[in-house]
C-alpha cells in the first residue's frame, strides 16, 4: 500500500502538498517525495527515505515552491527502501514525473522493451516503466493525453497513477485501476488523493474515479474519461463530511479490529515470502552451535512459540531471551546465531541485544516489518514480513505473521535435521495455507459469541490465561493483549503450573481462559482438560477455547468457544485470534482508547 496526492492551483501549494502526504503516511512511511512543476522549466523532484518530517528536513521541503505538483508516501513492495526507489520517478528527458500506488505485473516485459529503445532506468521499481513508456509514446504522438492513455493501455496489474509534465504545466493526469483514487474540488485549487484524508482540510467536495478511468485535473476544472474508449463520463460531485482518521480505518471502528481482519491476507503474504530467504536462515540456524531468538513484549512470546515449534518439529531447542535481559543472560560468540523479532525494527532493547551479539561476532538475523529500519539495515540476514503498516499500538497481524515465518523456518530446519520428512513438511505447509480461510470463518462466525462473553465479564479485573505446550506462549501473548488494550490484569502461565501455587487465587472474582488443543494431540489434550477440572472443582469461571470434537463427553468449561476442526499444526494460531477478539471486545465494552492505549507507544525506542 502506498499513498499518492496531487494539487493543481495558481498559487504556491508546496506546503499543502507536504500536508497531504503527511495525512497519507498511514498508507506507507518508509520513504516519500514530491514533484513540483514551475511553468515549462524542469520538474523539481525531492525525495528520500524516511517519514515525511524526516525527508522534509533532509530535503528542505520548506524551501520548495510551485503551483502544481504530485507527491507520494511509499511502503516498499518492489525494490528496496532507497532514495532512488522513492517516488516520484522521472523520465529520461526529465519531461514527465509520476507517482504510483499498486503493482504493475507486466513491468519486466515493458522494461525490456524500453531498455532496447535506449531508456535508462534509475530505480528497481515497477513504477518507473510507466513514466518512460509515456515519454516514448509522447515522442511518437506529440500529445500528452494520447501518450498517457496509450501507456495505460499497456499496463497489467493494479494502479492509481498521477503524472505531471513540463509540456502541459497546468495539468495533472491521473488514472485508476483497482487502487483507490479520488479528486477533490476546492475554491482556488483542485486535488487528487488515494483517499480524502489527502485534501479534506481544504475541500469537502469530491469526485470518485472508478476502475478503468482517467482524469485531467487543472486548478479550475476536471474531466473524467474511460481509458479503453476515451469517452467522457459525467460523475456527480459529492460532499464529504468526515474526519481523515475514519477514512484510514476503512469502515472499521478501530485500527486494531481492522488489523485483526487483515490477518488472512497477512498469512498469505508470509507464505509468499521467497523460500530462498527462509532457507537461508534455516541453514544458519542449523550450522551454528547455538541459536538465540530474542524479542520483547509480544515478540518475546512469538519467539517462545517459535521455540516450541523448533523443539517439536525440528528437534532443536533454541534459547529464547527477552531482549531487555539479553545482555545479562546470553553467552554469545562467533558460533552463535541470534534472530531478533521486531515489527518496527527500531525497538531499543532488541537493537541493543543485536549490537551486543554483533560485537561478540555472532551471526545476526531479523524478522522485521519495516523495510529500511535500523534492524533491517544492521543484520546479516533479513526476512521482511510484508505485513503492511501496523498502526494500532497493540500488535496483532504483525505478530501472527512473525509466527508463520518462524513456522516456515522450523519446517526447513526440520527437514534438514531429518526430524520430519519432506512430505510431512509439505503437508504442514499446506495446513498453514488453510489458515486464511479458517481465520475468516472465526471472524465471521464467532465474533458474536466472543463479544457476548466479553460483555458479560467486562467487570472482572483478574484473568488467568492457561495453556500447555505450544499453547503456553499463546496464553502469555493473549494475557498481554488483555493487559495492554483493556487495562485488565491478566497472567499467562502453563496450566500445569497452576496447582503449584496460583490455584489459591481462584474464586468468583478471577476468571480463567484455557487454550485447548484439538483431540488428536491426545496427551496434550488430556493434560489440558485435567487442569480445567482443577479450576472447575474450585468453582472458578472457566472459558474454554476449543475445537469441535467427536466425543460427546461434556467438557469442564463454564463457557466455551468451539472452533471448527483444524489440524494441530495451525490450531494455536486460530485460538490466538479468538483471544485477540476477547481482549478487543473487553476493551470496547470498557470504552478504552483502543488504538493508543495509555502509557504505550508503537515502537519503544528508549531503554
Amino acid at each position: 500500500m502506498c499513498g499518492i496526492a496531487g494539487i493543481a492551483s495558481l498559487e504556491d501549494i508546496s506546503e499543502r502538498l507536504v500536508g497531504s502526504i503527511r495525512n497519507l503516511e498511514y498508507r506507507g512511511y518508509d520513504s516519500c517525495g514530491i514533484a513540483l512543476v514551475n511553468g515549462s522549466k524542469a520538474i523539481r523532484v525531492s525525495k528520500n527515505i524516511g517519514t515525511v518530517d524526516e525527508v522534509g528536513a533532509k530535503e528542505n521541503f520548506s524551501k520548495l515552491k510551485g503551483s502544481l505538483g504530485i507527491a507520494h508516501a511509499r511502503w516498499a513492495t518492489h525494490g528496496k527502501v532507497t532514495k532512488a526507489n522513492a517516488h516520484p520517478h522521472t523520465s529520461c528527458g526529465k519531461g514527465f514525473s509520476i507517482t504510483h500506488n499498486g503493482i504493475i505485473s507486466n513491468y519486466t516485459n515493458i522494461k525490456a522493451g524500453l531498455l532496447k529503445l535506449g531508456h535508462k532506468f534509475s530505480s528497481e521499481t515497477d513504477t518507473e516503466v510507466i513514466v518512460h513508456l509515456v515519454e516514448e509514446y509522447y515522442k511518437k504522438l506529440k500529445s500528452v493525453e494520447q501518450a498517457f492513455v496509450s501507456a495505460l493501455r499497456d499496463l497489467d496489474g493494479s494502479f492509481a497513477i498521477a503524472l505531471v509534465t513540463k509540456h502541459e504545466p497546468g495539468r495533472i493526469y491521473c488514472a485508476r485501476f483497482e487502487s483507490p483514487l479520488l479528486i477533490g474540488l476546492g475554491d482556488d485549487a483542485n486535488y487528487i488523493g488515494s483517499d480524502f484524508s489527502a485534501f479534506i482540510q481544504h475541500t469537502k467536495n469530491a469526485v470518485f474515479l472508478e476502475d478503468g478511468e482517467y482524469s485531467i485535473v487543472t486548478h479550475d476544472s476536471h474531466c473524467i474519461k474511460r481509458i479503453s474508449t476515451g469517452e467522457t463520463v459525467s460523475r456527480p460531485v459529492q460532499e464529504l463530511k468526515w474526519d481523515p482518521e475514519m477514512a484510514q480505518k476503512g469502515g472499521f471502528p478501530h485500527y486494531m479490529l481492522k488489523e485483526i481482519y487483515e490477518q488472512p491476507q497477512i498469512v498469505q503474504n508470509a507464505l509468499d515470502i521467497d523460500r530462498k530467504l527462509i532457507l537461508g536462515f534455516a541453514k544458519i540456524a542449523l550450522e551454528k552451535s547455538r541459536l538465540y531468538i530474542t524479542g520483547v513484549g509480544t515478540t518475546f512470546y512469538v519467539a517462545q512459540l517459535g521455540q516450541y515449534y523448533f523443539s517439536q518439529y525440528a528437534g532443536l531447542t533454541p534459547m529464547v531471551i527477552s531482549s531487555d535481559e539479553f545482555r545479562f543472560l546470553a553467552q554469545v560468540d562467533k558460533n552463535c546465531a541470534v534472530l531478533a523479532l521486531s515489527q518496527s525494527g527500531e525497538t531499543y532493547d532488541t537493537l541493543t541485544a543485536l549490537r551486543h551479539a554483533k560485537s561478540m561476532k555472532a551471526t545476526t538475523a531479523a524478522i522485521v516489518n519495516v523495510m529500511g529500519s535500523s534492524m533491517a539495515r544492521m543484520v546479516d540476514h533479513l526476512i521482511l514480513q510484508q505485513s503492511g503498516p501496523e498502526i494500532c499500538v497493540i500488535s496483532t497481524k504483525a505478530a501472527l505473521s512473525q509466527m508463520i515465518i518462524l513456522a516456515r523456518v522450523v519446517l526447513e530446519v526440520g527437514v534438514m535435521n531429518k526430524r520430519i520428512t519432506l512430505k510431512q513438511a509439505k503437508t504442514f505447509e499446506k495446513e498453514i495455507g488453510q489458515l486464511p480461510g479458517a481465520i475468516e470463518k472465526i471472524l465471521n462466525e464467532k465474533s458474536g459469541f466472543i463479544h457476548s462473553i466479553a460483555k458479560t465479564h467486562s467487570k472482572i479485573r483478574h484473568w488467568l490465561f492457561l495453556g500447555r505446550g505450544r499453547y503456553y506462549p499463546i496464553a502469555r501473548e493473549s494475557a498481554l493483549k488483555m493487559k495492554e488494550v483493556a487495562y485488565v490484569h491478566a497472567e499467562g502461565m502453563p496450566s500445569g503450573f497452576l496447582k503449584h501455587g496460583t490455584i489459591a487465587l481462584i474464586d468468583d472474582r478471577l476468571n480463567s481462559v484455557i487454550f485447548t488443543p484439538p483431540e488428536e494431540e491426545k496427551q496434550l489434550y488430556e493434560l489440558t482438560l485435567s487442569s480445567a477440572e482443577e479450576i472447575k472443582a474450585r468453582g472458578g469461571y472457566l472459558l474454554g477455547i476449543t475445537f469441535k470434537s467427536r466425543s460427546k463427553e461434556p467438557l469442564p468449561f463454564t463457557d466455551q468457544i468451539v472452533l471448527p476442526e483444524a489440524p494441530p499444526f495451525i490450531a494455536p494460531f486460530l485460538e490466538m485470534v479468538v483471544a485477540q477478539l476477547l481482549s478487543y471486545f473487553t476493551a470496547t465494552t470498557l470504552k478504552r482508547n483502543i488504538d493508543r492505549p495509555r502509557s504505550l507507544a508503537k515502537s519503544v525506542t528508549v531503554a
Partner: protein
Amino acid sequence: MKALLLAGGRGAHMAPFSSTRPNPMIPVGGRYVIDRTVSMLYEAGINSMKLVVGHRPQMLTKHLSPEHPTGMAIHFIDQGKQNGIGKAMLKARDQFSPGEHFVLVYADTLTASNIISVILQSFSLHNEPTAAICLTRSGEKYGNVYLGKDMKITKIIEKPKLKAGLGNYVLAGVFVLPEAFFGFLEKSKGNMEAALKHLIKKQSLRASIWGDDWLDMAYPWDILKANQMVMDQWKEAAIHQSVELSNTKIKGPVRICEGADIRAGAVLEGPAYIGPGSFIGHNVLLRPYTSVGANSVIGHGAELKNCVIFPETVVGRLSFIGDSVVGEGVDIGAGTMTINRTIDKKEVKIKEGRTLVRAGLNKLGAFIGDGAVIGASNILDAGSMVQAGKKIPHNCSYPAKR
C-alpha cells in the same frame, strides 16, 4: 443526501404499548426515539427526510409537523397496508431520482452514538452501497453477514437457527443504498432480503462496522435497555434554572427540566430524568435509570427504580415502581407495588399468546399501557402486562399472564 425512515410497523411484540403508538413514539431518556433519530440524521448533514408511516400514523405526523426544531424537511408517506419493509420502501420510490444514494433507517433501532455519521463516512470511502453491521446477543433474530476482502459482504444468512452456531455480525438496520436498489426490490416483489442478495450479487454491498452499543426495540423490556443505553452516555447533572431545590439530595447525572416541582426530602440518584412540568413529591426516592415524563406526578414517598414513566402519568403516594414501563396518561393509585422478581430469583418469563418469552432478565416488573387506571393498594406481579385503557379496581392484586 436524503434519508428514508421506515416507521410504519406495528411492533409485533411491543404490547401493551403497540396498540396505541408506533415504536418510534416511545420515550427513552426523556426523548422520543424518533426525535433521537431525526437529530442524528441532522447532525450527520442530512436535511431532507422521507418518513414512511403506517401504524397509528397521526401520532408521528402530529408530533413532527409542521416544523421540526432542527429545520429538517420531513415528508410523510403513508404505507397503507403493513406488508413488510420492502413494500414500505417501494412506496417511497418516486421521492428519489436515478443515480442518487440515500440513507435507509429502520426507525426502531437505537444506538448509543451517531451511527449515521459513521456509515456515511464508510460510504464515502468507496461510494458504494453500504450496510451498518453490529454484534448483538440475539444474532439469530437478524440477518447474519459474512465479510470478505475489503469489507465486502459476501453472504447474508437470515435468522439462522441457534444450533447453527453462528455468532456473526448482523445487519444493524441502517444502510446507504442507490436509487437503483428499488429496481432490485421490485424484482424480488418487495422482499428486502432477496433484494439485498441481488445487490450483493449484481453490484456490491460493503460493511461499516458499528462498534458501539446498538439495540432493536422489539419487546417492552427493550425500552428499559434503551433507556439505560441512553443514560449511560450522560456524564453530568443538568438542572434547569427554573427549578427550586430545598433539602434535595442529588447524586450522579440527574437531568431536571424546566418547571419541574421537586419537593423537600426527595433523593434523586442518577442517571435519572425528570421531565418538564412534572411533580416529585416529598421524600420521593428515584434510583438510577429512572425517567419521569413531562407533566407526570410522583406522589409522596414513592420509590422508582430503573423505569420509564411516559408523560402525563400519575404514580400515587407510597408506591414502588421498579424495572417497569408505565405508559402515557396512566393513573396508578396510592400504595401500588410492582413486584420485580420471581420468588426463586430466576429469570422472569413472559407469556405472549401461547409462547413463553424469556426476557433474559432476573428483575422485571410491570408494563402498563397508555391510559390504564390502576386502583389504590394493588400488587402487580413480575412481568405483568396491563392493556392500554384497562381499569383495575382498588385492592385487587393483578396476576401476570403466565
